[in-house]
């Protein structure tokens, strides 16, 4: 078994009186692809935000290779370099070109040379089919292209784990594929990834392990084939049934 990379124990996250995550445990191993699914508002996006220290937590601990992630702590920026995060709304920096979006953090945070960072950025862009867009600005790109750039931007920091927060939810259907293909390729390369998604077929194809969350805790987890074909809990069965339609004719 590969080594433990991320260890979450008894995580509690509350917004005022509303408990979003309630004593959740999760361990992710190196090279593992974990897909998190569940109804909206179940806490799956919040979980990713906590892992990246974007939210203060009210209980439990999150550790990356033994280092605890604490919102607002001094060493958080250093820890975050090991965690790549891609958001639903891409959030490229609109005043920077594609290449500068990608190389800003490697150059300013990791103090790598501009030449070397750009070389790697171009190599990664080529792999996602966007090398010719390097000099363009985010507003000149389609949603799918922006999201691929956002993935490259995260990759260029050499993160140990990648977090994907519903990265295709804001895309037109015909652009979903190009982004999912990039993620499938990353999975094949053996990257550690935690993916929150509503794309069930993609989840089944990419996941090593599927985690079903509802009401702030893990209800069921398992290998994708077993989970999608024969879910054990009633709640998961109900949830998966939402995605099947009876023919009306």
């Amino acid at each position, binding site marked *: 078994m590969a080594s433990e990379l991320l260890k979450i124990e008894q995580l509690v996250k509350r917004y005022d009186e509303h408990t979003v995550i309630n004593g959740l445990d999760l361990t992710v191993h190196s090279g593992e692809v974990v897909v998190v699914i569940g109804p909206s508002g179940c806490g799956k996006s919040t979980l990713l935000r906590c892992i*990246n220290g*974007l939210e203060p937590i009210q209980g439990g601990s999150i550790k990356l290779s033994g280092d605890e992630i604490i919102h607002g702590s001094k060493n958080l*920026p*250093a820890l*975050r*370099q090991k*965690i*790549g*995060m891609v*958001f639903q*709304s891409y*959030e*490229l*920096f*609109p*005043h920077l070109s594609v290449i500068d979006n990608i190389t*800003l*953090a490697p150059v*300013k*945070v*990791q103090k790598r040379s501009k030449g070397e960072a750009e070389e790697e950025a171009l190599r990664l862009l080529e792999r996602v089919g966007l090398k010719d867009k390097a000099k363009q600005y985010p507003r000149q790109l389609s949603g799918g292209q922006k999201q691929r750039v*956002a993935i490259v*931007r*995260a990759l260029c*920091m050499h993160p140990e784990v990648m977090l994907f927060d519903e990265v295709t939810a804001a895309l037109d259907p015909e652009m979903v594929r190009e982004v999912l293909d990039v993620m499938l390729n990353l999975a094949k390369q053996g990257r550690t990834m935690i993916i929150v998604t509503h794309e069930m077929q993609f989840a089944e194809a990419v996941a090593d392990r599927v985690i079903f969350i509802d009401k702030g805790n893990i209800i069921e987890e398992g290998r994708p084939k077993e989970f999608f074909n024969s879910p054990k809990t009633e709640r998961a069965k109900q949830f998966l049934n939402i995605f099947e339609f009876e023919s009306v004719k």
Partner: protein
Amino acid sequence: MPDLGLEVLFKGKNMIRLLGGLWAALKISLISVALSIPLGILLGILMVRKEVVIRAVTRIYLEFIRIMPQLVLLFIVFFGSARAFGSDISGELSSVIVFTLWGTAEMGDLVRGAIISIPKHQYESSAALGLKNSQTYFYIIIPQTVRRLIPLSVNLITRMIKTTSLVLMIGVVEVTKVAQQIIEANRMTSPNAAFGVYLTVFLLYFIACWPLSLLARHLERKWG
């Protein structure tokens, strides 16, 4: 060809006097702009703070200055303060005070708008890349704020230049006042001078403001 009274401009030092008047107007607006921009940035930063008292005070200041016509403000500062406090401040200084109060309010509101228009996700995606807070502001937030701000503040500057034509009402001899004087002095010899002289004033304002308008439009297109 009707008599436009343009010949008045070439009498004596009339043209030089008009240019001197333009300079008087520009001096007031440029000093006010130079003071308004840093003060406005400060005000804008204060306006987005969470403290209720700071918000209320800055809000009242902004609304007060906005609702009050600039002319009334000029009268209060120039005539009012002289009577009430026995102060003896010049028309130029009164003008600079009023235009700085006004410019600061307008600039503050522009800065506030620019700051809150940067989405929260920009801060988060920058933090997620491992940038420190100071780096996030320096490389991500401030450049975007400035880009949104520059075209708007250039427009504010042109508005301030134009509005200086009001200061003749408190006895400051600026370009419009000089124009009046020239017209009055030549009433007998060139009764049509009003058209030509005011046309010249119009052109002088135009020359002062047009490049700024062009710059604003250029920057808007470049960064839009």
